[in-house]
């Protein structure tokens, strides 16, 4: 396949940035999108240029590092996959593909397509945990039965990979889907109950401090989420937040 790539180039957070056009030829349909990017960079380096910086690591859809906005969609045209799992067979010979970074003021650009998502870490640090020491001297694991349906729902919420596609997709750059997934995981489990109210308050406060936008319930985040995190998590978080605020007064 022969393709034309329009790639966002930006030297750092303070650079204005611009789109540059690169032709690539001989792309195999079996390549992953990132392998196609490897090929582009190989070509740029051999020509003495500056390769395109992008984040990636596991290349199997679980680390959450890869983060490309492809033809106007987070992780590209396919549903339920990350950029690294997108294969070139999803494109046609002669296509023009536009590749941009996640855009959100809470995610400043590091270089080109790589952004700084440390805001997510700070939200987790604000309360995304159960305060239990790692002594190993806790209850026997089977002393806390959890109904299967509830355990499965907690697991589904816990599968969020923290990639930030939800933020990149949202027109307000809201992080509600990400934050609510972690809040829900613990809200659904008996172990998470003691800190349930304080956790949601602290995490939501931190989310606001980081400059993420408000949620206007368009649901676009859940559509683009590569892990299928459900919108009902946001509803659960809103309920928990309200009841936590009410009981405080």
């Amino acid at each position, binding site marked *: 396949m022969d393709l034309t790539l329009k790639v966002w180039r930006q030297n*750092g957070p303070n650079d204005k940035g611009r789109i540059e056009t690169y032709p690539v030829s001989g792309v*195999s349909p*079996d390549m*992953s999108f*990132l*392998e196609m990017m*490897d090929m582009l*960079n*190989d070509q740029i*380096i*051999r020509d003495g240029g*500056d*390769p395109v*910086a992008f*984040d990636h*690591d*596991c*290349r*199997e*859809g*679980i*680390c*959450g*590092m890869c983060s490309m906005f492809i033809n106007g969609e987070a992780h590209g045209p396919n549903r339920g*996959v990350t950029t690294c*799992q997108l*294969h070139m*067979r999803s494109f046609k010979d002669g296509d023009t593909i536009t590749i941009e970074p996640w855009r959100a003021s809470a995610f400043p650009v*590091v270089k080109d397509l790589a952004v*700084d998502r*440390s805001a997510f*870490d700070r939200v*987790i*640090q604000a309360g*995304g*945990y*159960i305060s239990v*020491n*790692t002594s190993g001297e*806790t*209850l026997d*694991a*089977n002393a*806390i*039965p*959890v109904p*299967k349906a509830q*355990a*499965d729902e*907690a*697991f589904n919420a*816990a*599968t969020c*990979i*923290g990639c930030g596609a939800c933020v990149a997709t949202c027109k307000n750059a809201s992080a509600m889907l990400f934050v609510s997934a972690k809040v829900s*995981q*613990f809200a659904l*489990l008996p*172990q*998470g109950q003691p800190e349930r109210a304080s956790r949601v308050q602290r995490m939501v406060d931190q989310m606001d401090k980081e400059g993420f936008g408000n949620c206007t319930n368009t649901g676009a985040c859940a559509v683009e989420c590569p892990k299928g995190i459900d919108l009902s998590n946001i509803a659960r978080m809103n309920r928990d937040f309200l009841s936590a605020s009410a009981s405080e007064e």
Partner: protein
Amino acid sequence: MFESKIPSGPLAEKWTSHKNHINLVNPANKRLIDVIVVGTGLAGSSAAASLAEMGYNVKAFCFQDSPRRAHSIAAQGGINAAKNYQNDGDSVYRLFYDTIKGGDYRSREANVHRLAEVSTSIIDQCVAQGVPFAREYGGLLDNRSFGGVQVSRTFYAKGQTGQQLLLGAYSALSRQISKGKVEMFTRHEMMDVVIVDGKCRGIIARNLITGELERHAAHAVVLASGGYGNVFFLSTNAMGSNVSAAWKAHKKGAYMANPCFTQIHPTCIPVSGEHQSKLTLMSESLRNDGRIWVPAKKEDAEAIRKGTMRANDIPEEDRDYYLERRYPAFGNLVPRDVASRAAKERCDAGFGVNETGEAVFLDYASAIQRYGKTEANIRGLRNPSEAEITKLGKEVVKAKYGNLFDMYKQIAADDPYETPMKIYPAVHYTMGGLWVDYNLMTSVPGLYAAGEANFSDHGANRLGASALMQGLADGYFVLPYTIGDYLASDIRTGAISADTPEFEAAEKGVQDRIDHLINNNGSKPVDDFHRRLGRIMWNECGMSRSEAGLKKAIADIRALRDEFYSDVRVPGTADQFNPELDKAGRVADLLELGELMCKDALERNESCGGHFREEYQTPEGEALRDDEQFAFVSAWEYTGDPSEANLHKEDLKFENIELKQRSYK
């Protein structure tokens, strides 16, 4: 500093009695002591969190943009623990025995027993932290089976167990970061360790965004920097996984143990072409239910390779379920090294089933039927049709392995619910690593290694679902105790200064290496060299090794390394975000490690576990160990050139287990 320090006394009491007798640091004094942890996977995150909870001041480093992205996140199948919840005869002793046997009798009894002992606490701990393990309808925890064992002791969270465990450790780490007890440095790479008066007293780190070099001093340093499977270029490791932290420690005096012990995992998606950048694992848990086969007739295999025949066209009697045939007692659940070699044997003999001839089938058809029938019974369906059974069976398989099947479909563009998957062995894990004593201290005082970065528990072959167990055992339950024994003598030392000639020299060394790479006016990108190194390693130091091949590999690697230093092109500058420069430094280290791996493989004139020397095999083609001469750990001391490394032997003493020819027949 080359003593294993295995405590005396009966095996089952060693760990308890060791804990009772080692030195402690009182809580007030812990506040005066700084510890550096490099790497934030299961071992690193859990160690950093635990050490901070105990009161030490911790600095943690990772090269990723968040500690949550370390490669432990990608582990799929599960984590072992001797809980015996299934009442199937499991026990601490049996987990210990299985691990020693699975490792082909090349690991330390005392370390492995300790691992089995603390395994149960890991599960309790993780559940308390809110890790959502799979559960049965009654609300209790579910288990599955893994290779090389005859009990169900593996706890899991679908095919994302590593993710859930790492997020658990990451949340514990995050809690300590919020308290200010851990200072976290993301997008930082460790460039060297600093030794002062014979003790490890800090590291030189590089800020990967600005390129600045930083000095960080501490009373002790823990390397939890993972394995080095990426020396093969193609592996199931993440792209950034590297040996550099461990290798820099090696060059500063830490011995490298059993570097040739590499795990080739039997069930990965086969290579599709030259462009391939990494390989994807299909969890070993799939061998619980899937059956592995190739056509029994060569002409059928040829027809499949040509595309004129499909798997489903081959009748049952013309299929060769070669694992079930060769190993009736364990069948499809033989250990990884055995399953991988058996796949290679069939493919080498001409029975491979994809275009390259390097693939076998992993078939779910009979599991779908079996689960479908059970499910129909549960739902009280009388005389269900075949279509109904198949539908129900697919639903059960989807619930158990859905994400793995989806992943396969994405990559291979083929539906595994309808036709068998094609799989082939790929590099997955390295049992070798930094030599450590019973306290997890390397041969450099004050420098520790945990998780995959050390060599300690898996011998010559790791059993499935044991890497997660070891990472968390080291980080949560071993290191927090044993490090105190060393640090107890440091309570009056005071803060360590980074403003010393030793730090200055280390920083200058790092700067010189970076300058060389960035100013080298070569013509080829880093990946070009990495791919070629990988090819040498896979061909000569992969699933099967020979004296001639290894000697040739050593010469080839040396030539490639020379070419790398004269012809590599690293774009950009050193004072900016420059992933190519980061990669160049890592590949430079892999080019040295590869040579040592080949040397180690050459010196070990026996076959054991994942190390298969063609010259040493039984008439049936099984690994032929030589316990008389090789029941030892090879610990290599760096002397300036990988080929000139000094070999130190730690004899392995088996006091509780009788050494036997490993049999899964």
